């Protein structure tokens, strides 16, 4: 069909079309993939070069005319413009969108904690989970006969011992302190999140694998007062500005003085409840001034440098913040659990 006959056919067809279906039929007849107008277009390459331009232009005009007529007819039929309507949409159906996956709650909490220290200028570093006896114990001023070195408290690995003693699974992230100081010079401000392992039988509050974040700051003139200030900034950032804090003397071989840090119970606000054992306080971390022996072990001059270190359990903090009552949920990876975060 040539352009003119198509024009004529169109004039004849458009009048009687009185329904949406009839209009759709016409749309296919003229504009569809094998329709009359595409057929015209497909003849263009066969034309002499000088004719192609003007012919193409005419085809295009025709195409526009068809579309205009169809639109006009549609309006005259009083077809509802579906885009402008809300009545045809059941907005109570599920929204169409791909669901995002979730980060594990332990990742969320570890990030939150590390971010708080990053704001104060700390860097996030990491260390291996397979460690030497030296980095896990000796370097940290833990005596040879200390009970924590026994197989009841530490997983040992069946590989030949190296120059730094037997290999083991680190039982604390404090190992990163030793590693960091052996390879870098002060000033130093680092936090190190990671997995740790202890041979504990698994129950609602124990796991043989759990997570800690270790922190260390060393320079000239770092004091216990700085330790207090930095940890207060952290704890208030994580648990809220209105919490109360207390630093309770404690003992760790690698710090002196050492302090355990309690916050007022975030469940009962310090009144006493089952979560805090009626005490009104929750222990959240251990800390202290780095012991001079640890500095000597890594080749720092204890008369020049001072520093503080701290360590906390990520699983415990996640459980407190999210109200999770069984640590096993963190490792079971049930999607019904994971999708709540």
């Amino acid at each position: 069909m040539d352009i003119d006959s198509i024009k004529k056919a169109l004039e004849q067809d458009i009048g009687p079309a009185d329904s949406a279906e009839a209009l759709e039929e016409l749309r296919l007849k003229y504009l569809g993939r094998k329709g009359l107008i595409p057929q015209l277009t497909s003849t263009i390459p066969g034309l002499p070069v000088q004719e192609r331009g003007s012919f193409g232009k005419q085809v295009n005009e025709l195409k526009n005319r068809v579309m205009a007529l169809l639109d006009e007819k549609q309006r005259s039929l009083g077809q509802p413009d579906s885009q402008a309507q809300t009545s045809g949409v059941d907005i109570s159906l599920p929204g169409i969108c791909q669901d995002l996956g979730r980060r594990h709650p332990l990742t969320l909490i570890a990030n939150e904690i590390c971010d708080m220290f990053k704001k104060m200028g700390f860097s996030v570093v990491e260390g291996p989970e397979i460690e030497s006896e030296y980095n896990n114990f000796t370097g940290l001023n833990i005596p040879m006969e200390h009970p924590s070195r026994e197989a009841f408290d530490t997983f040992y690995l069946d590989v030949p011992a190296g120059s730094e003693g037997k290999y083991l699974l680190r039982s604390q992230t404090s190992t990163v302190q030793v590693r960091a100081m052996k390879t870098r010079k002060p000033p130093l401000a680092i936090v190190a999140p990671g997995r740790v392992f202890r041979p504990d039988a698994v129950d609602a509050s124990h796991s043989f694998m759990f997570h800690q974040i270790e922190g260390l700051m060393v320079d000239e003139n770092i004091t216990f007062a700085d330790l207090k200030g930095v940890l207060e900034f952290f704890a208030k950032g994580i648990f809220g500005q209105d919490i109360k804090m207390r630093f309770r003397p404690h003992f760790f071989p690698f710090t002196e003085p050492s302090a355990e840090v309690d916050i007022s119970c975030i469940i009962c606000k310090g009144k006493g409840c089952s979560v805090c054992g009626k005490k009104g306080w929750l222990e959240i971390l251990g800390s202290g001034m780095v012991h001079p022996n640890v500095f000597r072990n890594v080749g720092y001059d204890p008369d020049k440098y001072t520093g503080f270190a701290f360590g906390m359990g990520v699983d415990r903090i996640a459980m407190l913040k999210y109200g999770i009552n069984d640590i096993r949920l963190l490792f079971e990876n049930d999607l019904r659990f994971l999708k709540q975060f």
Partner: protein
Amino acid sequence: MKVTYNWLKEFVDIKMPAHELAEKLTMAGLEVKAVEEISGDFVFEIEITSNRPDWLSVIGVAREAAALTGKKIKAAAAKSAKLDAPGAEKFSIEIEDKKDCPLYTARVIRDIKVGPSPEWLRIRLESLGLRSVNNVVDITNYVLFETGEPLHAFDLDKLNDRMVLIRRAVDGEKLFTIDGQERKLGRDILVIADKKNPVAIAGVMGGKDTEVTDETRNILLEAAIFDPVLIRRGKQKLGMTSDAAYRFERGIDPASPDKASLRAAKVILELCGGELTCAASSGASRIKESKVVLTAAGIKRRLGCEIPQVKVNNILAGLGFEIKETKKGFLEVKIPSWRLDVKAEVDLIEEVSRIYGFANIPSTLARVVLKNQGDGAQDRIGQCKDILCGLGLNEVVTYSLIDRKSLEGFWNTPDSLIAVCNPLSVEQEVMRPVLMPSLVRGVSHNLKQKQEYVSIFEIANIYRLDANRIQEEYRLGICLCGSKPVWFDKGRIQDEAGFLHLKGIIETLLKRLNVRVNDLRFIAQGAYAFQVLAGDNDIGTLRRLERKILERMEIKNKEVFGAEIDLPKVFSLISTENKFSPLPKFPFAVRDISMVLSEGLPAEKIIKAILDKGRDLIKEAEVVDRYQGKPIEPGYKGLTVSCRYSSDDRTLTEAEINLVHDAVISCLKEEFSARLR
């Protein structure tokens, strides 16, 4: 450890109420876990840190109370002539190895009357949770709690040959302990023996045969020092525990055996009558006189504040340290015998700060010196997690330890596994060398919970021995299983997870990390896996889990697809260059080619042919549709490729495009027997 309020008051003049004292002790490092009112007294349950065995006694806690309240501790019991001049009776003590037992003291008391304890003694022991036995045993327990030195009383007449020998047990020796159990002894157990047999497990528990009963008339009172490690190992080996062992394994004040023995003898003479006829000892208590210098400058340097000298002096004196101010700001401090833990200035600073109160030390924010401290991979790993969550995957955390059985089909070089020496269960046998088994287990768990679609990932370490070197590196593991409902405007379809989903995830991850993906290749490895190559770098594997593995993991009628990606390798390929390409100045034209092709023909061959033939005019060619099924006959597939024509220097004419397009189509027809649809 338990002490009572009234008992403490015998040593310090405490005016404050019990709960207030408990709070003060807690904030000085003796954490009072509970205060319970029993028989008009208050029992404190205190958690004692392992460095302070001297706190495992009423006197030890009383010293703290004295320092905290500014009171003096009351002098120890007065001496008496009766005790200082024992009779001339001889008793033989032999010590096999002074390292195992540096000091052993024995007092013989004759003609005593064993019977029930007076009420005050019974009540006091019961409030600590101890059962009253008889007056002699109760007195030894009482003095143990008061002084921290464990004591033991033997029925002297049951000992063979008026002697004790402190020696290692012989393999095969046995002893009935006072709790009625038969204990099998060996070389690593230290015992007290008479001429013939062991009569007590040193530092842990006495024997049944020689215990003090109502018939006992003469006793041997033991007070000694044993090697802490030997006692700890022994009690662990025997699976026993006792108040005595608890103290010996932590270390005993070397001055205390004789003092405690005298104290017990005095009370025994008072309550049971009798006469002290012998005081013997072997070995020597090694009391080292040590002095440590404490400076005001040292305090300020470590704590960040000054503490008035008078306060420092009072605190140390209250705790039993002898002090001498050698010059202004310098204290020479003599360490008492019970303070085995104080060795250096920092230890004294701790003592001062503890009693002064951590709450009284100000809070400051450290002055930070800005310095590049080097970043680990944490930021990159965090970025990966964000991308993967954005793609709908959920992060999991699975155990780093695994059983060998679970590794079957995943790891075929058992020699490279790192085994745990002391696993608690078979699930902790080895360090995992791959993530996949743990992830498949996660899938299995979720399928059991009736999840239709499981898409999970983990970024964690894997471990192996490589030529006897320990290798520990992080990997990304992904597991997909089941079908996901995908909604569109007309309804929903089920999208069944497969290899192409894994491929899509990995391509997107790499693109977002700015790794070039043009040379990413997926090479079939056997019937179940594809190796993923980026250029020449092997960056991981995609696999469909074999049926027998799935059966072992209790997964039925489901396909599981997994990927394990070498993230450190991927990170090494990240390009820091990310240059902007100018937007095209001239319009483009799109031509689709719908064709029918042989089923086995890879799409990438078609694309490559189109791009080759399209010379410089086809800038992009991508598969936009794929179809199998009617009306296309079996063995064939429909493929639609969209070609994008454009030029950087002009608007292409129809004629130019048609010329190339026709050539492309005839090439497809000739080379691949493509039929246009």
